């Protein structure tokens, strides 16, 4: 097979990532939870319907069952949170491993002695990882559609399937900046520990701290796939929300996902959230490809 440099790096990156045992552990947790999410959703919905019937039989409410309007896509809802938690961490770990591998093995010196531009080399590595994430999410989408079909007892309609596929496309865009963040940490950190830790700290800030500043949502409540309630229109949280909302990528992802998955509670449009996630992805990719040659050859202090 005749490969050009770009394709060779992409294939090499894919091969190395598939061979890494530790990311595989995270991968197993991720795929396992995606498969389990539909059944967790089914159990929750059954219990809520039971609770509603009991409330109705005791004459305590006249309100309609809030779940009556829910489509089969409700069962895919939990997946959103697994992408935010496990998917993003997996993206960070494979990104860090990708650049750390080169620095630890000192292969960068050898590669850069050839006629290779750092931007195209790093761009090809990033493309390889992006393809890996895409394949992983494609497999997850198939598993998810299969599990939801089992739970609802029939094959999902084309429209519902397309919505789940659309959600996984969004998940790919969401995971991409975390891959880039991991790669950057692997390139810039002075030790393997800080290379892994810094992006995880950044992730924890984006997912758990920024939403609190903008909406007063408690950190543990952010583990729920229901997006945090919007900030008040005036006062302290209106001000802080304006400042931090664009950086709360996790909340933006949850909001756009809820719209894609037809969550009846979701309101508004997806343009803002989509643009924010895309902007992060572009910024991350640009930052990786703009890394200088000297930085790629930096010594380690581990």
């Amino acid at each position, binding site marked *: 097979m005749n490969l050009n440099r770009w394709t060779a790096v992409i294939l090499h990156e894919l091969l190395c990532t598939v061979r890494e045992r530790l990311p595989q552990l995270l991968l197993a947790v991720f795929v396992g939870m995606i498969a389990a999410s539909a059944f967790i959703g089914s*159990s929750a919905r059954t219990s809520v319907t*039971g*609770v*509603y019937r009991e409330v109705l039989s005791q004459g305590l409410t006249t309100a309609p069952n*809030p779940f009556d309007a829910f489509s089969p896509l409700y069962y895919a809802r939990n997946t959103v949170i697994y992408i935010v938690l496990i998917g993003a961490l997996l993206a960070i770990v494979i990104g860090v491993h990708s650049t750390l591998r080169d620095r630890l093995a000192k292969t960068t010196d050898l590669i850069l002695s050839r006629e290779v531009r750092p931007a195209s080399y790093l761009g090809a590595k990033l493309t390889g990882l992006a393809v890996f994430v895409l394949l992983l999410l494609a497999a997850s989408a198939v598993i998810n559609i299969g599990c939801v079909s089992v739970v609802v007892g029939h094959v999902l309609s084309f429209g519902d399937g397309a919505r789940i596929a659309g959600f996984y496309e969004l998940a790919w865009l969401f995971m991409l900046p975390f891959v880039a963040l991991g790669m950057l940490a692997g390139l810039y950190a002075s030790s393997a520990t*800080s290379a*892994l*830790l810094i992006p995880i700290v950044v992730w924890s800030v984006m997912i758990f701290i920024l939403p609190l500043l903008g909406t007063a949502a408690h*950190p543990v409540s952010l583990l*729920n796939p229901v997006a945090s309630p919007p900030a008040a229109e005036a006062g302290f949280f209106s001000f802080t929300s304006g400042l931090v909302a664009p950086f709360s990528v996790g909340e933006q992802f949850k909001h756009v996902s809820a719209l894609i998955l037809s969550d009846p509670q979701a309101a508004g449009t997806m343009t803002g959230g989509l643009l924010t996630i895309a902007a992060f992805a572009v910024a991350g990719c640009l930052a990786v490809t703009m890394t200088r040659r000297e930085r790629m050859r930096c010594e380690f202090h581990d």
Partner: protein
Amino acid sequence: MTEVLVLARKELTDLRRNRFMVVLFVFLAIAVVLSVVVAAADFRLKIAGYNHYVDALTAAGSAATAPAPQLFPLQMLRGGIEYLEIIGSLFAVVLGYSIITKEKGRGTLQLIFSRPLGRYAFATGKILSLALLWTVTVTGLFLVITATLLLVGNAPLQGGDYLRLGLAAAHTIGYLIMWSLLAMALSSLTRRTGTGLILALVLWLIVVLIIPQIGDTMDPDNQIPGGLFASLQVDKSHEQAVMAHFTGYETTRDLIEQTSVTKHYERATFAYLGIKNDYNQKSLGFIWAGTFNNTLWLLAGLITSIGVARLAGTQKIILRKVP
């Protein structure tokens, strides 16, 4: 015993000089303080909203009254405790991991073990230093939290509140030491740099985030923003009566949550701080009766982690895993 103290002192000196760790602790302190500031701002908004409502009622000539929002200062710590639960445990993992890998990286393990040390002296010295570090750090954090409550939250703390804060701090110390020791043990048992950290991170992910998330998702009241019962306009007393028909489901959900030591930590601290309404303004005896199993499970986790860290930190095991 002297050798253990020497090792612990050396470890504490190392940690004090580690700027990265100092930055992490400062970051944790900022996150916790911010959560109290945000809770205080949220409460002020509720008071402003209440005053606005009362003014509107008065202007409309209505004699109806509404109960004013009540300030329970320790409830403002909910976000802070959740940060310690999630981010604090993450940093504890990193700390426990680095305490062994730095020795592997510097090649000092062979030198240390060339001295006549007792079988468990090395691990015990490390465990002692971690215990001291977390005791000092968490005490400092809770002092900062208390000062923030008093200054920013304008919270009038009573004598009993300080005791409750002390009990919450004690649970936090045990919880964070446990995570550091588990990471230390995994780091001792793995050869490659990063392997121990990723294994510990996967464990952290499952115990701290995934299991509680599954439990929360299975909670019928968490299915709708604002709560299922609120949306159906069902009050608390009726809610309990309804849920009494779903004991089997609730027991299963509770069992899933109880497999996470994080949930035990959360339940105990939330009870002592009155964050959980069932325990708010109740005596310590009442709270202990309701949550002693959570405290004991946390203690069991701590004791297990000490045992595992001591066993994994012996010369025979640790030198076998040096790259």
